């Protein structure tokens, strides 16, 4: 069977295993390793790809909810969308959510995902009270930052390389509306964009859409969107039917012209310098989920998302160089997302650090990986790093420069018998 992740690249031959009981899981780990846990297949690259994968999506029971503290106890295969579906109408929302609701809780922990409120609330692990994980020897450990700090630091952001996460307790946050009061700020260049991020840094949610094909003076022109929940008591929330993209687009459909046109329309749509809107949860947090399988617009060959982060002090200079490089290459991206992050946490492989991150999609085509290699060099030159959950091609050398704790992670895996048992294409490439 062919397996792939969200980028549709690469596609590899693989065997999928499901388990109905803990005993079955133990046997699979014993007899089928090396393998890697696989949730809902929304990581972009090869972090959850291997020739043997263990599916966790079907483990989707809700176990308990404490109305007082907002603590929700669920199995690791539960999707964020399922939590929203049942809990938004009751006035609860995820404390931390990435830009898609179609990921599992296990995946959220293993990627230590972050969202538009990273500068305020940090990564997903900061809303996790504890999780249960099966280790290579079949033992199930309840992991907390206090009792098992190393297992915590290795697993949150650890890309599934420490074991199979089975259940978790996470805190939800109280909301009084399904609507968000959004302010959109139109900026003319990178300097203005940075200033706007700083000016609005008190807003709980913020993200910018940036036009990566802009040239010269215009480099860095953006739409910064910031917002917070409304308080009008309107909580009627239902999952919407998604529009679907039934076929892979032909590979030539996306080229620098069509992307340029899209970017121009998108940017030009906003007339005023500052405008205000009231939008619902799905529009604000999950705009792309409205189109099922949107990854297919990149055609059969697939795509990758390049996401890096630079330390705050070097962000301005570094980003300018990188944007210039991208703009000169003419390789377009529909979605380029810029965000100012808060402080890094202690997890060994978590991506965020205080600074600016940029994420862009590229369809797989000749010349792309050379371009990304050039970008890599700029990223490490400025002390930045690459996000493993999106990555499919970074070199070991570049990766290591960005993650100073990598040797602790390696040592921990070695010492606990995880190496060789849990492996992905990515972990092999990067020798982690």
């Amino acid at each position, binding site marked *: 069977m062919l397996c792939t992740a969200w980028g549709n690249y690469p596609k590899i031959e693989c065997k999928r295993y*499901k388990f109905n009981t803990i005993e079955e899981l133990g046997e699979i780990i014993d007899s089928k390793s090396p393998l890697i846990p696989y949730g809902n297949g929304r990581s972009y690259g090869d972090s959850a790809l291997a020739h043997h994968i263990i599916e966790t999506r079907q483990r989707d*029971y*809700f*176990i*308990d*909810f404490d109305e007082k503290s907002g603590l929700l106890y669920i199995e690791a295969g539960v999707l964020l969308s*399922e939590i929203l*579906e*049942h809990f938004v109408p009751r006035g609860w929302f995820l404390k931390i959510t990435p830009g898609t609701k179609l990921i599992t809780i296990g995946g959220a922990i293993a990627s230590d995902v972050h969202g538009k409120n990273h500068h305020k609330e940090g990564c997903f692990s900061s809303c996790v009270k504890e999780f249960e994980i099966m280790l290579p020897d079949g033992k199930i450990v309840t992991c907390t930052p206090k009792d098992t700090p190393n297992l915590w630091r290795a697993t949150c952001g650890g890309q599934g390389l420490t074991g199979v996460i089975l259940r978790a307790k996470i805190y939800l946050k109280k909301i009084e509306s399904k609507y968000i009061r959004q302010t959109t700020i139109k900026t003319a260049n990178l300097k203005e964009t940075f200033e706007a991020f700083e000016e609005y840094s008190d807003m709980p949610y913020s993200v910018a859409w940036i036009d990566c094909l802009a040239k010269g003076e215009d480099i860095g022109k953006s739409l910064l969107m910031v917002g917070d929940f409304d308080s009008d008591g309107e909580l009627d929330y239902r999952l919407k039917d998604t529009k679907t993209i039934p076929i892979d687009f032909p590979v030539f459909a996306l080229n620098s012209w069509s992307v340029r046109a899209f970017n121009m329309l998108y940017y030009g749509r906003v007339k005023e310098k500052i405008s205000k809107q009231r939008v619902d949860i799905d529009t604000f947090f999950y705009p792309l989920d409205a189109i099922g399988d949107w990854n297919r617009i990149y055609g059969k060959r697939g795509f990758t998302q390049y996401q890096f982060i630079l330390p705050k002090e070097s962000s301005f200079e570094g980003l300018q160089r990188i944007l210039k490089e991208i703009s000169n290459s003419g390789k377009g991206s529909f979605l380029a997302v810029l965000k100012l992050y808060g402080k890094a946490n202690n997890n060994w492989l978590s991506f965020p650090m205080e600074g600016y991150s940029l994420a862009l999609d590229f369809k797989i085509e000749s010349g792309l990986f050379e371009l990304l290699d050039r970008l890599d060099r700029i990223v490490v030159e400025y002390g930045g790093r690459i996000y493993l959950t999106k990555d499919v091609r970074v070199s070991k050398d570049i990766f290591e420069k960005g993650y100073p704790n990598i040797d602790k992670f390696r040592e921990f895996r070695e010492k606990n018998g995880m190496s060789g048992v849990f492996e992905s294409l990515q972990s092999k490439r990067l020798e982690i």
Partner: protein
Amino acid sequence: MSYVLIIGANSDIAKACAREYAKNGYDLYLALRDKDRLNDFKQDIEVRTKRAVKLLELDILDFNSHQGFYNSLDEKPLGVISAVGYLGKHKEAQKSLKETRKIIDTNYTGVVSILNIIANDFEKRRSGFIVGISSVAGDRGRKSNYIYGSAKAALSAYLSGLRNRLYESQVQVLTVKPGFVATKMTEGMDLPQRLTAQPDEVARDILKAQQSGKDIVYTKWIWRYIMLIIKAIPEWQFKKMSI
């Protein structure tokens, strides 16, 4: 009256129906042979939806127990969904009457036995809905599973007759004909992805068809047309085919 009774509640389709109905505001009676198997699932639905879920013991093959089972429900259900299904081991059934009987009695006799009792009550009170999950396998007998298929064909005919009888009493009878569904029953089979439904998709189709008063629903919908074609193949040709 807020309860929907789901029979054969341990199947993947039944569980998906349970979640779908609970989500839409119904309380649930979940009936199955070994009720302790669904303790965690009961809790799952309660945490998700805050609806009431009661687990009930019911052996579909113990026909004599069925009347007592229904009598024991203090509050009668406003509708019933039978998701009882047993694919069985076809090769074994060709040789053994025991396996053949098990397939027929589970898929047909047992379901008829319990639905007769429920239908009588619904007819008397002149309200309710009865959803029977049959199968496209009942639309035409094929060599790979015709014992299961014939039991489902009988069930489809039963539901058709029941619908005819209960029309006067405003009781809805819905026949559900799933094609391929990715469940425990079909685990390990190499099913074509585009024709295979997920259980929650089947459950959504069932709820929608039931709420809009339909008689027969294929799920995925494309199976209506696939079966039209398969039924149209002349017998002299069909007998030579392996599909």
